[in-house]
């Protein structure tokens, strides 16, 4: 890379030229504008419900009472889901929308062959697509998050503490990571399937399966293997852990586990707790470090899933023979 830059100092490196073009395409595309509008709408909606319910939610002796500002992201009166649930729901859609036609549209338009005839490495194409979409997503989420914070600051007039701010930043990073997973999955489908429609439908099918049907299947399994009534405590805990682990195969479960822990400091554990474990514990919120420690497996799992998808798409793209359409 260094060498290439040195050859011609006046012009940009081809990789960044490609990233620039992809960025421009994303930002100008109708589908991005529509999704942006949708996300903005839900964002304001959830902000509105949380602000209106904020005064009701303050109770004396609430252990999470110090984390007043975080409630902007988590509070709801039941009519509209809170901000982080919305992101968990719309994020995958955004990721799929930005990636489902990454490669196959270039192929069917005949531009991929022309692109490959230029002096660039093959992986630039897929890397540039991924980088550009990731930049778009990160910019969008950070802008949204900071906007909610800013509006909240104006409306409720209480500044966030440093810890709250950091928790929100981590939450945003996590959201970007979660969307990146779906982005990579849809890029992979865009390499596998020649038709953009097929790849979009497949990605949406996977998303629907994980958000709706997987839970149903797990509850069926849970009923089937439920331990007998007189089962010992050990057995019940094992059973509960097994079901939880099954649920955690799904990235959306990982995401919601991680976000709840980050945004609700009162959450002390993501699994079942025995009486012995809870006994003697002071009902106080966890410090940020401990919350992070708690979600570390979830975080690693999400990163691993993202990297796996990217590796799969990288592998299949590098081996793909590029012919004209």
């Amino acid at each position: 890379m260094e060498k290439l830059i040195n050859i011609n100092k006046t012009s940009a490196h081809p990789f960044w030229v490609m990233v620039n073009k992809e960025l421009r395409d994303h930002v100008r595309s109708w589908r991005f504008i529509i999704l942006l509008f949708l996300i903005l709408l839900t964002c304001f909606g959830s902000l509105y419900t949380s602000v209106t319910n904020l005064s009701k939610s303050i109770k004396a002796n609430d252990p999470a009472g110090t984390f007043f500002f975080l409630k902007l992201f988590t509070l709801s009166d039941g009519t509209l889901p809170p901000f982080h649930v919305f992101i968990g729901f719309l994020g995958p859609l955004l990721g799929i929308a930005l990636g489902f036609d990454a490669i196959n549209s270039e192929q069917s338009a005949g531009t991929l062959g022309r692109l490959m005839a230029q002096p660039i490495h093959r992986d630039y194409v897929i890397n540039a697509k991924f980088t550009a979409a990731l930049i778009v997503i990160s910019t969008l989420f950070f802008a949204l998050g900071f906007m909610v914070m800013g509006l909240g600051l104006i409306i409720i007039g209480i500044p966030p503490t440093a810890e709250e701010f950091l928790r929100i930043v981590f939450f945003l990073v996590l959201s970007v990571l979660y969307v990146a997973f779906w982005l990579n999955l849809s890029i992979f489908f865009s390499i596998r399937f020649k038709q953009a429609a097929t790849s979009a439908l497949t990605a949406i099918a996977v998303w629907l399966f994980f958000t709706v049907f997987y839970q149903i299947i797990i509850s069926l399994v849970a009923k089937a293997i439920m331990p007998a009534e007189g089962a010992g405590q050990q057995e019940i805990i094992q059973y509960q852990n097994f079901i939880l682990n099954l649920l955690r195969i799904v990235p959306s479960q990982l995401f919601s586990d991680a976000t709840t822990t980050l945004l609700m400091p009162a959450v002390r554990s993501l699994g079942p707790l025995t009486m012995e474990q809870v006994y003697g514990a002071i009902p106080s919120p966890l410090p940020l470090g401990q919350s992070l420690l708690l979600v570390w497996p979830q975080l690693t799992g999400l990163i691993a899933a993202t990297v796996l998808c990217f590796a799969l798409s990288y592998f299949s793209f590098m081996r793909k023979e590029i012919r004209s359409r």
Partner: protein
Amino acid sequence: MNSSVIELNGLTKRYGTFTAVNQLNLSISKGEIFGLLGPNGAGKSTTILMMLGLTEPSAGTVKVCGINATVDPIAVKRRVGYLPDDIGFYENYTGLDNLLYTARLNQIPEEEAMARAIRLLERVNLTAEAGKKAGKYSRGMRQRLGLADVLIKNPEVIILDEPTLGIDPTGVHEFLDLIVQLSREEGITVLLSSHHLHQVQQVCDRVGLFVEGKLLAEGDIPTLSGKLFPDEAFTITVGVRFVDNNNVEQEKIRLVKIVEPVNGVTVIQFKEDLLQIRCTCDVTALIARVIIENGFALTHLNRKEFGLDEIYHHYFEGREVHGKAN
């Protein structure tokens, strides 16, 4: 062989058990226009992809401008322009923007890229449409924009895969003229693949015949017909009025006897009343003189050189009797 720009050595590409390109040896020298002629599925496109390093050969080597295309495709692609058979552009970008994007990918400084793009658009006669979105271009315009796109990096070699497909006849003519002009003026080596023999015949210095992954023959058209039809490069058709109408059969035998000793004649046969003479060199004048000197009245004389048509039929359409092409 020092001046050869493209050199293929024992190039082979297999897909599973299917051999798309088989032991291909070819060398193209600088400034030449070479036509790769063959039916669909003969392995032309695969060969081109290997030249650009887009596909790895199963065996053999490809050298373009002295660089091994398999090992260092980037260096090759910096020097070679490639126009795929059905070129696509970013449809919501203007023609000019498409060109500028290619220029940027080739790290051409911005001002120079602009100057080159404008000059090339003028050259391919698209100045008026430069600001139009590429999605609105017609097929011929797209192809011309494609040529500009190929030329913007100042290539040493341009490879055109079926460049005339789907353009109307006048468009084809202009397009081919443009290619010849460019090649002559700027010394660009051109490799053109096509299954359209007349166009190839029209512009190419040399032709390679490509069937089922094998290069059957290469050379300019006369050499090629000489190679493919070593004994019968020319066909002369002679018609005579016989003096003695009652004795036609005998007269025919006499005619054959006087033509036979002429140098270069290989096959003589009657086709209805016309005599077909195949020969290795052009002996039309000699034959005419012999016939007249022997008292026959010459009524019909026709010389036919084997063109690509015959060559094409001969090789691509199941090796039928050569005479059929006449």
